[in-house]
């Protein structure tokens, strides 16, 4: 534990901890704090209103309410803490033994303890009270019994997950006995979850104690207890409502503070649970301030469907801001298929999602650039200027999208037909019957053998290939001008993959020029088959652009060359996948962290041709002739 952790931890649990400590202090110092004897009656002044002597007034027997509240804390907390401690000791030992040794000892400890869980807690408590009579001892006993299984289960779970970890193995290797291992090596490492369980238990114990006392079956009068005070004040609530509200307030605030403390403990123990949201919001605010939009240059040529210029997308994370798309410009022409290629994390999918306005929210933001779309009715629309309702009219109608994993991209609880009908009706005023008929025609069109049946089936009833066909049918339902296909075949096996690619090609051929495709993939084999033009992305930037024949013949960027070298050559096709992969030249190194600042060429750390100059300034994306672009200083040497 570093001191930084301690500080952050303390700040997070600050006020609940302070509140709990305060309540504990009140309980401990009750004799000093209470102005009166909590059980001394003063019947003449029953239900007396607040005065200097009795700041909160007097109860139905004339006892001082403030003193009873203060002593009530003592009673509640001592019962709760004592029973939680007893339950913890027994439960932890049971869990440790059961989890560590397993087998018979597991049966004897955990399963026996679990019997308690057969009964609703309150009922078990009442049963024991019947047998032993009410009182503090009975209460403590009952509560201890009730909370043993909780501790046993938590400990058991933690032991199972820690017992084979290195430090435990190490202790065992040193020849330590089981007891040493259990209490010396395992227990200290599961303190966190047990602490959480302990605070939970104390809160529940207070709830149960006050409940039983309220029923008159817990703490025996005249001892002060919040539950008993509420019980007593209930009869006089019309005359003296405050006498009822004070103990309620004390009870609720105590339980609330402990619960808050428990939540903070849990956050501290489990780093995943929202602990780092602060960083996220700070970063998000910074990104919102970055937004700057320059007007796009010039008009869009008539044959261009999509013109992206200087697109910048940021993804906010708690630890930093990722430059997911960094100044990306390209165009997609009518009827053309443009492949966007790159490793995962290169920003290729984010480019597609930015165009659609579907970035993860609230983390993803387009902070600059222009995305212009030529719509069906011949207008040019700036997508980055549109608000959500206007964007909605574009999605599905003008630009449709299909995704990598058809199983998770279709909603498992709705029928395939319903999901397609929904897509149609989002943009067309069609009644259900007409939309169903259209959906059926679409399914038939994408080559689904029994479209009528498919309509009524759930996604999990279809094969992967059929699911992707259904996805395509859904995407085509409004005859979009542009289809963004995000790794549409990656999750499918090779034969199905070929069929889906063939389907997409056939659909595009049917009405030449009607639909353009932006094909996002990491698979160069697919690129060779599908694309007219290729954009290679690396670290959120386009590093090379060329038409498909030339890029395969002569790459003008070292990264593209590396990608090409890592594709199995046709001569290797007979080899098994694994052995083929082993023989391939892979690009050394990994994709850079896009949250960090960088100077110079993003590929430099992995580039065999890198020079000092490459690390000085960002290489520009230069025109290298023949409609090609490259972001490499040494492109001419390739």
């Amino acid at each position, binding site marked *: 534990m570093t001191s930084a952790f301690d500080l952050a931890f303390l700040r997070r649990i600050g006020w609940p901890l302070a509140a709990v400590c305060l309540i504990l202090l009140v309980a401990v110092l009750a004799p000093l704090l209470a102005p009166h004897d909590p059980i001394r009656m003063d019947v003449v002044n029953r239900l007396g209103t607040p005065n200097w002597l009795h700041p909160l007034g007097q109860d139905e027997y004339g006892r001082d309410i403030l003193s009873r509240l203060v002593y009530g804390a003592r009673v509640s907390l001592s019962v709760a803490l004592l029973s939680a401690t007893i339950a913890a000791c027994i439960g932890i030992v049971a869990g440790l033994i059961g989890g560590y040794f397993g087998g018979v000892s597991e049966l004897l400890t955990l399963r026996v303890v679990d019997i308690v869980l057969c009964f609703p807690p309150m009922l078990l408590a009442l049963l024991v009270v*019947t047998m032993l009579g009410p009182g503090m001892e009975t209460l403590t006993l009952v509560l201890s019994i009730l909370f043993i299984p909780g501790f046993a289960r938590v400990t058991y779970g933690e032991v199972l997950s820690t017992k084979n970890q290195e430090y435990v193995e190490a202790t065992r290797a040193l020849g330590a006995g089981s007891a040493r291992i259990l209490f010396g090596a395992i227990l200290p490492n599961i303190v966190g979850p047990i602490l959480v369980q302990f605070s939970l238990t104390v809160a529940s114990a207070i709830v149960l104690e006050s409940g039983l006392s309220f029923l008159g079956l817990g703490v025996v009068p005249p001892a002060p207890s919040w539950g008993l005070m509420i019980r007593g004040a209930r009869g006089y609530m019309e005359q003296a409502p405050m006498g009822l509200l004070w103990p309620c307030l004390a009870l609720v605030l105590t339980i609330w503070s402990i619960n808050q403390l428990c939540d903070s403990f849990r956050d501290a123990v489990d780093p995943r649970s929202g602990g780092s949201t602060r960083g996220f919001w700070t970063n998000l605010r910074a990104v919102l301030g970055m937004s700057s939009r320059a007007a796009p240059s010039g008009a869009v040529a008539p044959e261009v469907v999509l013109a992206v210029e200087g697109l910048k997308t940021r993804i906010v994370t708690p630890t930093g801001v990722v430059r997911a798309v960094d100044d990306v410009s390209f165009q997609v022409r009518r009827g053309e298929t443009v492949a966007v290629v790159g490793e995962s994390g290169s920003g290729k999918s984010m480019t597609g999602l930015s165009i659609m306005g579907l970035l993860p929210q609230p983390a993803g933001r387009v902070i600059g650039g222009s995305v212009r779309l030529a719509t069906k009715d011949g207008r040019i629309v700036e997508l980055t200027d549109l608000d959500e309702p206007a964007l909605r009219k574009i999605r599905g109608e003008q630009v449709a999208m299909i995704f990598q994993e058809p199983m998770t991209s279709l909603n498992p609880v709705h029928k395939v037909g319903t999901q397609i009908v929904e897509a149609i009706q989002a943009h067309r005023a069609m009644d259900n019957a007409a939309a169903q008929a259209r959906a059926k025609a679409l399914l038939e069109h994408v080559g689904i053998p029994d479209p009528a049946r498919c309509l009524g089936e759930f996604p999990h009833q279809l094969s992967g290939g059929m699911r992707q066909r259904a996805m395509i049918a859904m995407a085509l339902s409004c005859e979009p001008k542009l289809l963004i296909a995000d790794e549409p075949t990656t999750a499918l096996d090779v034969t199905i993959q070929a069929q889906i690619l063939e389907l997409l090609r056939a659909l595009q051929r049917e009405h030449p020029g009607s639909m353009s495709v932006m094909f996002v993939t990491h698979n160069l084999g697919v690129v060779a088959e599908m694309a007219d033009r290729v954009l290679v992305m690396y670290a959120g930037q386009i590093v090379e652009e060329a038409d498909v024949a030339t890029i395969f013949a002569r790459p003008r960027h070292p990264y593209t060359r590396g990608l090409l070298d890592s594709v199995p050559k046709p001569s290797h096709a007979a080899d098994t996948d694994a052995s083929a992969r082993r023989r391939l030249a892979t690009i050394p190194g990994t994709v850079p962290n896009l949250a960090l600042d960088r100077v110079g060429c993003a590929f430099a750390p992995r580039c065999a041709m890198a020079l000092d100059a490459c690390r000085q300034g960002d290489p520009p994306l230069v025109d290298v002739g023949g409609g090609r672009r490259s972001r490499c200083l040494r492109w001419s040497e390739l």
Partner: protein
Amino acid sequence: MNYLIRRCLISLGLIYVVTTLLFLALHIVPGDPAELLLSGGGVAPAPETVAELRDRLGLNDPLWKQYIDHLVRLAHGDLGTSFQDDHPVVEEVVRRLPRTLELILAAAVLALAIGLPLGALAAVRRGRATDRILSGFASFNLSVPVFVTGTILVLVFAQKLRWVPAGGYTPLATDPLQHLVFLLMPAFAISVGLAAVVFRMARAAVLDTLERDWVRTARAKGLSPRRVVVRHVVRNALTPVVTVLGLHMGSLLGGTVLVEYVFNWPGVSSLLVRAVEQRDYPEVLGVVLVVSFLFILLNLVVDLLYALLDPRVRHA
């Protein structure tokens, strides 16, 4: 199928354990069970009466024989007779059980109606003011014991505003409207805490669902945010929420004890409290037995329902 059988067997085993434990409960207490049974009123019973009862209950038989007799009686639906009025316990329990179940069901429906939409709203507005206020309110509500909620409801709505009666019961057949009026407050008292539980689950489930691919697909189709949230998020988040709510129904069986007491609701739980106060052993044991059975059965139903809704559980 296998899972189904295994799960049913476990529940049967639990029922057996409960039965045995409750039998033993009478015998492990120090003292003579017959004397205990008779000492209800707080006066020491006459030796002749004790002897007679020992005889009648077969307490002179060996323990194993008593145990067998106990099981046989239970199999015939005999839970013994109450000391208070010499009525068969089972009759009173059967008469009151539907009322308790009605209360729980009403509370669950209310909790779902309140917690689910608010949970979805908080999730959609994650991290913003709406979410923080709602989440804070929920965590506060979780800290208010149900009898405090109940008592304060009585204070405000019955004593001060005089909108509703402080408690009581009218059979549905006598006066349906009055019946609902009486049901409203106790059901609401339970649902305040329960709604907070539902809220938390719904918020978590919706947050989880919002990140699923099909939500992106739905948005890519151009659906309105409302439709996306209702049909593709909340609909999917419903399953886990309802399941966990079902799990809570079991623990509610115990939670009604306090509410029935506060509102004078004549369910099994208030029968239990009365019996505990009178130390009416047969009645206490009878109620605990029946309610525990119900508790186990309810948990079984929830587990099976869960398996039905989620095919992965069934095949695991």
